[in-house]
């Protein structure tokens, strides 16, 4: 241990080191490769079995749905949109942290992203997969999904290009494709590392195949950096576009409570908010179990918590703005929609949303709380719950439409609930497979932000 401890909070001229402990390149590689190379620990088998069985629950619910039709869901006449769209928006939102961290933080040169980007990009992909299930099955007839695609067909029926639901299809597939490419490009050098370290033939061949013949040559790195920059630039607007288009699903309507101009940026902020919360929930556990505390330090977690606080405040601003303008507009229907949200039959959901999304992140104002593992874990779970309820509250605006005689109440059926739970099974199964088979931290990038990678590193060594 070095004798002089720098308090980075008190010395603005120093920057917090992004890799803690006495690590060099070799030890970083060892730490990150360990979970992939060593036999899976018993908890991994238990967790995978558990989430696999929850995944089976999802599959059986989908099977039941295809067999029986959407009558098994809780939808009713005023509430024609139910859990499927809530879950869709929830999962897509979770999928926003990855691209924000990889693209926008990259463009803003936030170097702390290197320890968490791989992890959250993987999370993004899996969350988008979960999300895509819901629109694909929401009619209960997945075999006619090809109607969504603008392909010439013998029936001469085209999708309605003016429908935001169709834009969703384009937005999601673009987002998924670019995120996948981005993630994969970033993985290539690390896959090559795994290939070079492989002890068995199979590993060598499989990792070698996906490493695309990477040798770490100067020219490879040059192309890599260029590709990464271009993908980051392409992915940055996608961070905004996907959730903006999701918000259009609601905001292009004429429904009070749905139709409001602030929806696009408000949804994007909410998505980033929930995505970061999910990263915190998972990272707090993963760094503990895999011994990655030197790579994902308290500083990283604190930065993420600050982003949660900031985006949570933007979400709070949007809630407030909606409420204010609902009153300011002098439009009684608009005002009713909001008063009904807060004090109507779904007031319970509204206040869950407010407490989880607006009140709970406020604890992060205090350094002590935002650097406490249990506190941040609990708050991140609250934020996830709150963001699910936000979409629920928005969708449930439907339950009291313009005709009081048709007012109703939506109750999810056991199938609705099991499908939601099941989607977590899919997410966690994919995630656990990722943790086992791919390096969860971007080795090459983390090394790039270590002092040893700095060509101007002084002649004075660190204390030995």
């Amino acid at each position: 241990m070095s004798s002089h401890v720098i308090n980075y909070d008190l010395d603005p001229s120093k920057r917090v080191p992004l890799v803690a402990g006495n690590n060099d390149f070799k030890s970083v590689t060892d730490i990150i490769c360990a979970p992939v190379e060593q036999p899976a620990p018993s908890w991994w088998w238990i967790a995978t079995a558990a989430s696999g069985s929850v995944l089976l629950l999802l599959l059986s619910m989908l099977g039941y749905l295809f067999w029986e039709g959407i009558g098994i869901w809780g939808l009713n006449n005023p509430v024609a949109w139910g859990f499927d769209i809530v879950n869709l928006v929830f999962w897509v939102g979770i999928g926003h942290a990855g691209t924000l961290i990889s693209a926008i933080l990259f463009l803003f040169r936030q170097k702390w992203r290197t320890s968490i980007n791989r992890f959250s990009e993987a999370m993004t992909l899996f969350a988008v997969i979960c999300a895509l299930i819901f629109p694909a099955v929401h009619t209960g007839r997945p075999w006619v999904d090809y109607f969504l695609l603008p392909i010439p067909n013998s029936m001469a029926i085209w999708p309605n290009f003016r429908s935001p639901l169709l834009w969703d299809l384009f937005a999601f597939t673009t987002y998924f494709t670019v995120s996948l490419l981005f993630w994969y490009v970033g993985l290539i050098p690390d896959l090559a590392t795994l290939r070079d370290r492989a002890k068995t033939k199979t590993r060598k061949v499989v990792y070698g195949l996906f490493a695309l013949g990477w040798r770490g040559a100067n020219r490879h790195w040059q192309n890599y950096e260029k590709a990464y920059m271009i993908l980051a630039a392409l992915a940055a607007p996608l961070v905004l576009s996907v959730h903006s288009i999701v918000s259009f699903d609601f905001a292009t309507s004429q429904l009070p409570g749905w139709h409001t101009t602030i929806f696009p940026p408000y949804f994007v902020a909410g998505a980033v908010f929930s995505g970061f919360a999910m990263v915190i929930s998972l990272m707090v556990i993963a760094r503990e179990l895999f011994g990655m505390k030197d790579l994902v330090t308290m500083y990283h977690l604190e930065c993420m918590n600050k982003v949660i606080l900031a985006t949570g405040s933007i979400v709070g601003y949007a809630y407030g703005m909606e409420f204010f303008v609902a009153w300011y507009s002098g439009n009684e229907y608009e005002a009713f929609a909001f008063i009904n949200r807060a004090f109507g039959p779904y007031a319970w959901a509204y206040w869950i949303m407010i407490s989880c999304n607006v009140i709970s992140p406020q604890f992060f104002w205090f350094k002590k709380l935002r650097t406490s593992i249990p506190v941040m874990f609990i708050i991140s779970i609250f934020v996830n719950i709150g963001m699910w309820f936000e979409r629920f509250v928005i969708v449930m605006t439907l339950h009291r439409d313009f005709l009081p005689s048709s007012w109703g109440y939506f109750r999810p059926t056991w199938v609705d609930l099991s499908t939601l739970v099941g989607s977590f099974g899919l997410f966690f199964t994919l995630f656990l497979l990722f943790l086992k088979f791919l390096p969860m931290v971007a080795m090459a990038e983390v090394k790039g932000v270590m002092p040893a990678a700095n060509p101007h590193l002084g002649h004075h060594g660190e204390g030995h």
Partner: protein
Amino acid sequence: MVERTEKLTGFLADKLPKILLLMGTLSLAFCAVSYGANPRQVLFSYMTAFIFFLALTLGSLFFILIHFLTRAGWSVILRRIAETLMNNIGLMAILFLPIAFFGMHELYHWTHAEAINDVILQKKAGYLNIKFFFVRAVIFFGIWFWLARVFYNNSVAQDATGDHSHTLKLQKYATFGVILFALTLTFSVIDWVMSMTPHWYSTMFGVYYFAISTVLSLCVITILAMTLRRAGFLKNEITVEHYHDMGKLVYGFNIFWTYIAFSQYFLIWYANIPEETIWFREHFMGSWNAVAVFLVLGHFVVPFLGFMSRHVKRNLIAHFVVVCWMVFITIVDLYWIIMPNFSPEGIEISLLDFAAFMGIGGLYFGLYFLRLRKHALFPKKDPRLEESLHFHNV
């Protein structure tokens, strides 16, 4: 350590402020004289100029807040230029007085006696009434003035002592400062601009003005830095790397502006509800329609294509042309937002439009250079100054 020119001297420090102040006073005097003949024109021209310079001041305040909030290093060298802009908020408060004393009736028809018979305006009377309007104005300026003073004074004080505690204090203030900023900016623009069409509402309006002010202030900070460079100041300190980064921010925030402006328009167009579309109908009347199309091209297409390249951002002449264009197009944007309330049939450019801009602008930049020469041109003992000086784009 290299010797650096710290203080502004010469033409920019001595002659220019006098010229600007004289120009400003004369132009405003011209506005005042014309007030008798054409009060409406004077007030609307003045208001447009006022909102423009307010956007510049608030955008600079945001630049400073975000600088401390994110503990930025690269932008330290540019900070004094922005701080001095931000510090003009006191002048803006004084310039608001003519609007408060003479402008209410002409600018805001919710103040008229007939408003009593307007059902919708009656519902809003709890918010849109003169007394509360003034109370809010005092609160907005109070908060901005206080924030600007705290940030400016601490920054200047650090020049003498180099004490880190100033940086730490401002980092703390930036957190709640940015929240106060968001709320005051939103409600001030609702009061001063959105309520000119008092029936109309849009939850995005505050964000729209925020986008305008951010792009504008980034451009003006760049222009000022280049002006100083031209006069031989901070030539080796503010390098092409800093301009490149400022260019990226201008580019990014301009796309953000487009995103916000488009979303607001698009959602209103798509839902097609009369009480919302009315605003765009008024802003698409006659030749205003041509202005709207010009904005799409000039505010989005041209900079989007023209400013994308790294070479343009790193070529200071090309960069200068682009940011000047952005300032111009921001004026067009604000003119398009405000002036259709004055001349609904179409654009009517008046000499008074120019006089108001030159008036407020003259006082604004006259005072700016007077203040800039008082202290060092950059925060010379900022703990992150070295980081800023040695900063390189990858």
